[in-house]
């Protein structure tokens, strides 16, 4: 990747873009799957979906950890010149919280599973340790935590999407385009 300016990059790295969209799709799918599977009556299909949810969720965690390292070692492009201060703070805060939730939600899911007495075995192959012993009350509490964090995530993602669309349609400042390169080419 060529960063023409010595100080600040003008765009996201290809890796950052790939991770952003891959994880956005995964997280939205996970959200839908989580809501759907919990509503099912107990059946083999439900047990399968729970396992897939846990496997994919652990995958999100691994990607998020890698993405965090990538982010810390690759400076993102600066906010567009003239973007109001409050918007910059809101954007930075939202991005930080999104990173936090991409880590915290899988962690809460893993701990919840342990407390409920269902170990997580990634893709049925790699057993994750149970940090918590089986404890129904704690399991129910962590289920509430997982739910609440997901609600927070959904809210932030909606605001995040609204902001991206507003940048594209109202400010027309290329913020969406730098995360969605195919928009760039059309300019």
């Amino acid at each position: 990747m060529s960063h023409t300016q010595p100080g600040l990059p003008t765009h996201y790295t290809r890796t950052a873009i790939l991770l952003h969209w891959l994880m956005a799709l995964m997280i939205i799918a996970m959200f839908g799957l989580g809501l759907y599977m919990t509503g099912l009556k107990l059946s083999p299909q439900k047990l399968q979906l729970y396992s897939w949810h846990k496997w994919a969720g652990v995958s999100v965690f691994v990607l998020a950890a890698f993405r965090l390292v990538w982010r810390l070692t690759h400076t993102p492009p600066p906010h567009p010149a003239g973007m109001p201060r409050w918007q910059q703070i809101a954007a930075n805060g939202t991005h930080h919280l999104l990173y936090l939730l991409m880590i915290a939600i899988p962690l809460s899911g893993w701990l919840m599973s342990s407390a409920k007495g269902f170990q997580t075995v990634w893709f049925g192959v790699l057993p994750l340790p149970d940090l918590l012993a089986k404890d129904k009350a704690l399991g129910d509490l962590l289920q509430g935590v997982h739910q609440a964090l997901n609600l927070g995530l959904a809210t932030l993602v909606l605001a995040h999407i609204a902001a991206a669309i507003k940048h594209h349609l109202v400010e027309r400042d290329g913020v969406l385009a730098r995360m969605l390169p195919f928009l760039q080419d059309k300019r």
Partner: protein
Amino acid sequence: MRTCPLSIPALALLAAMSAGLSLPAHAAEYSVLDTAQSSISFTSKQMGVGVDGRFRKFNAALNFDPAKPGSGSARIDIDLSSIDAGSPDANDEVVGKPWFDIRNFPTASFASTGVKALGGDRYEARGKISIKGKSQEVVLPFTVKPSGDSAVFDGSFVIKRLDFAVGDGIWSDVSTVANEVLIKFRFTATTSRPAVKK
């Protein structure tokens, strides 16, 4: 059943002499179950992951004298409504028709037909397991660890749930819930006679 108080030490002595070995100091017939120190638990596999469960209520009529294992016997009855299959969801499910169908088959049982010594503290009990109206001959290995007036009987074995039609219909797909179920038991029993403290 009453035994002459002298017969048990006498038999133990006889057995010790004939075996030429030292026997547990308290060779005696263990036959009174200590329910608080006994358990029947199981591990099933869901999507390849072990899930633990247990039966809270059961009765075990044991008669076992390490000096004459051959005449030992056991009859175990499990109250299936006392099952804890690992989660509230599972508990609601497993009492139903596709699983244990406890309305029609409220208990599962094991009745021994013979006990054999395998050397050391190891033994095996032959007998019949009955679940959901189906029976099967099984051999259950176990160990006996006497201490004082009580002894701990420990064992585990694997049964195939589908042999007993447990988990019928949609659940008969063993890639989700495995066919094999590991059953573990631990019984603590004391001697029937008033304890002779040393």
